[in-house]
């Protein structure tokens, strides 16, 4: 395929740095319903996780994905079976989007035996070989090199699989990100770097931390094309994902997608959020909410409230069942302390 239209051109002759076209290709009704369902599942799951955290059932760190759901759901719709996903510690949404079982994820959050990591990983460290989800990493930026390694393996094996390395605007300032960019372009590795720009690295806004706040340009000096995407519109995400995936599968090397998004909740559960106003949060929720966008489009297209409620109900059942399981499942056996250190 030709180079994406709104991409930052490799040679740095980028002219556009705005968001993607105002009207991305429409979804079919099935796609809309699918996106709505998966985004709702993530949102309700995260809300429940927040509740359980408040009750003391979840300990330690817990980073919620609320507000950013369109990114993982849209990108997942652009993938095929076998493509790999890796991310940082705001990872619950990615796992659910990859098709991992809500019960196993929630039980990991509560540190139970039935969690994806037998309770030994926690919120930030879950994996599923079966679903090609490679974690769940707690060191900011580490997943970028690792995701590049997944792409390296695909290239080594000569398959046409693509790996997705998600990271945030904060991680974008880590050195190993650029070490990885360099190697990925040098070796034409099929990796999509997805920068989830939610405007705040913990409490530091991008303008206070980043000399170049257009993250789609962060690959220019390595000749990696990049694109800014409205990360609140799942259709725009999917369309950009399709372009990036095609680029990678064609053997043209890595691609950068800057997803412009927003996190409604604090950085973690213990974040007092003094760095932004309530009004700012409310405005994004009101004007740009990724779930409401789909819901409104579906209603405008003639889908009934009844149909949407059925999705709500299905999602709530899954989430409630996961919460019940996560609280009833036993803690890991003490003997698990010494397992899985070596193989």
């Amino acid at each position, binding site marked *: 395929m030709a180079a994406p239209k709104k991409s930052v051109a490799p040679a740095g002759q980028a002219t556009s740095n705005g968001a993607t076209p105002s009207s991305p290709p429409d979804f079919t009704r099935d796609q809309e319903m699918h996106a709505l369902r998966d985004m709702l599942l993530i949102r309700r799951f995260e809300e429940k996780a927040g509740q359980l955290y408040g009750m003391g059932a979840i300990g330690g760190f817990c980073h919620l994905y609320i507000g950013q759901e369109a990114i993982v759901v849209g990108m997942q719709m652009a993938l095929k079976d076998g493509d790999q996903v890796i991310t940082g510690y705001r990872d619950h949404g990615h796992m659910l989007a990859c098709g991992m079982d809500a019960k196993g994820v929630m039980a990991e959050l509560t540190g139970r035996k039935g969690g994806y990591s037998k309770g030994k990983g926690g919120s930030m460290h879950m994996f599923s070989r079966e679903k090609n989800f490679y974690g769940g990493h707690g060191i900011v930026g580490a997943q970028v090199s690792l995701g590049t390694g997944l792409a390296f393996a695909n290239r080594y094996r000569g398959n046409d699989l693509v790996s997705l390395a998600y990271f945030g605007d904060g991680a974008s300032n880590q050195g*190993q990100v650029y070490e990885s960019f*360099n190697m990925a372009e040098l070796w034409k590795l099929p990796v999509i770097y997805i920068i989830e720009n939610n405007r705040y690295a913990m409490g530091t806004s991008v303008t206070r931390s980043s000399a170049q706040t257009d993250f789609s340009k962060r690959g220019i000096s390595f000749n990696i094309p990049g694109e800014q995407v409205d990360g609140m519109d799942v259709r725009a995400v999917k369309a950009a994902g399709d372009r990036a995936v095609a680029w990678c599968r064609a053997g043209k090397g890595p691609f950068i997608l800057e997803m412009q998004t927003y996190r409604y909740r604090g950085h973690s559960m213990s974040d007092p959020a003094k760095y932004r106003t309530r009004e700012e949060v409310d405005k994004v929720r009101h004007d740009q909410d990724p779930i409401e966008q789909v819901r409104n489009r579906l209603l405008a297209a003639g889908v009934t409230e009844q149909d949407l409620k059925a999705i709500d109900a299905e999602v709530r059942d899954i989430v409630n069942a996961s919460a019940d399981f996560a609280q009833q499942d036993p803690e890991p056996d003490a003997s698990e302390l010494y397992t899985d*250190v070596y193989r």
Partner: protein
Amino acid sequence: MAIQVLMPALSPTMEKGNLSKWLKKEGDTIKSGDVIAEIETDKATMEVEATDEGTLGKILIPEGTNDVAVNTPIATILADGEDASAAASALAHAKQEKAAESAPPATEAKSAPAPKEEAAAPAAPTTAIQPDPEIPEGTEMVTMTIREALRDAMAEEMRRDEDVFIMGEEVAEYQGAYKVTQNLLQEFGARRVIDTPITEHGFAGVGVGAAMSGLKPIVEFMTFNFAMQAIDQIINSAAKTLYMSGGQMTCQIVFRGPNGAAARVGAQHSQDYSAWYSQIPGLKVVAPYSAADYKGLLKSAIRDPNPVIFLENEMLYGHSGEVPKLDDYIVPIGKAKVARVGKDVTLVSWSNGMTYALKAAEELAKEGIEAEVIDLRTLRPLDTDTIIESVKKTSRAVTVEEGWQQSGVGAEIAARIMEHAFDYLDAPVARVSGKDVPMPYAANLEKLALPSVADVVAAAKAVCYR
């Protein structure tokens, strides 16, 4: 007076080289900067430039001469008006002078290897090594350098398993910064022998990611000093992920390269990381001494389903030892070796520390103290049983390491001996280690900073109350 051209040292650890080619002949006019000869070491072929002007008077070492010791006069350059007879007298003079400086002329070098500073690079004392019970009796042995043993181990494993590949700085086209990966590119191609940019943190992460995907990378660090840039990926990603994933995500990877002090390379290139890595659950840490162990343990490391830190030693790369000629020679990880049998005191060491320990054992024997020397070979898992068994016999122990003492491997060994053999001890365990300073550059200070044979002898005598 005629100027002597001496055999140059082309690297910090070079002691001798082969004079492969003369590019000027006697009587040629030489200008400063002219390339006059080519010298080949076990690491590289280098050009010798003239630093003086005149006429090439006499070639003292003919081309094709092997093992020419550093500082041996190889030619004379005559100033204007001088003749070759001046050169001859210069040679005679040089011979006398150089003999005093302990660098014998090349013609004698083969039969009598150049004596080396004990602290820096003693010759591999193969005679002191106990026969390895793991090698079947009657096995044909091949003498090879440790560098070659490592290369052969990698080549064999790469032939055996398509998922094994090597990546690192200068591993491919340059043939390895220390020539350890020589000819691997030629045999396996650029797909499996991969030159990386200078980007330790990044390529360590790429290696770990590839391993999580099921490949079996060998990641070479030009030295483990540079791996400090990458240690987050080694520990947080490689070592911990199996546990954090409840056993799902494996990481079969070897991180290898020279560790510890080389010679005269200063504080940032001389650190011993044995203690650092040996502290980490999830890692295996291997640090061999003998050529056979280098080969057999590297093969084991590549096959091991866990992340393995394989600590080599630059001072040992050029040392030769006997390696069994077997199709598949494997040394198990986690097994120490009794390198010398004794009854009076146990010396515990690994890697280049064995150099001091074995020499010290010889010295001690002269004084009637029979030291048992244990080569740990693996630091994690640590073979406590072999140490304890020996201490129960000798009742005395000395640990020997090049690294720093505080929280060192010696401290761990001493603690384990106390825990498991307290009642057998006749003296507190003594530790010989690198001194508690960054590595100095000056030759005398560097020597002082490293452990010495004398240190080990003194410690052994102290625990024997002699």
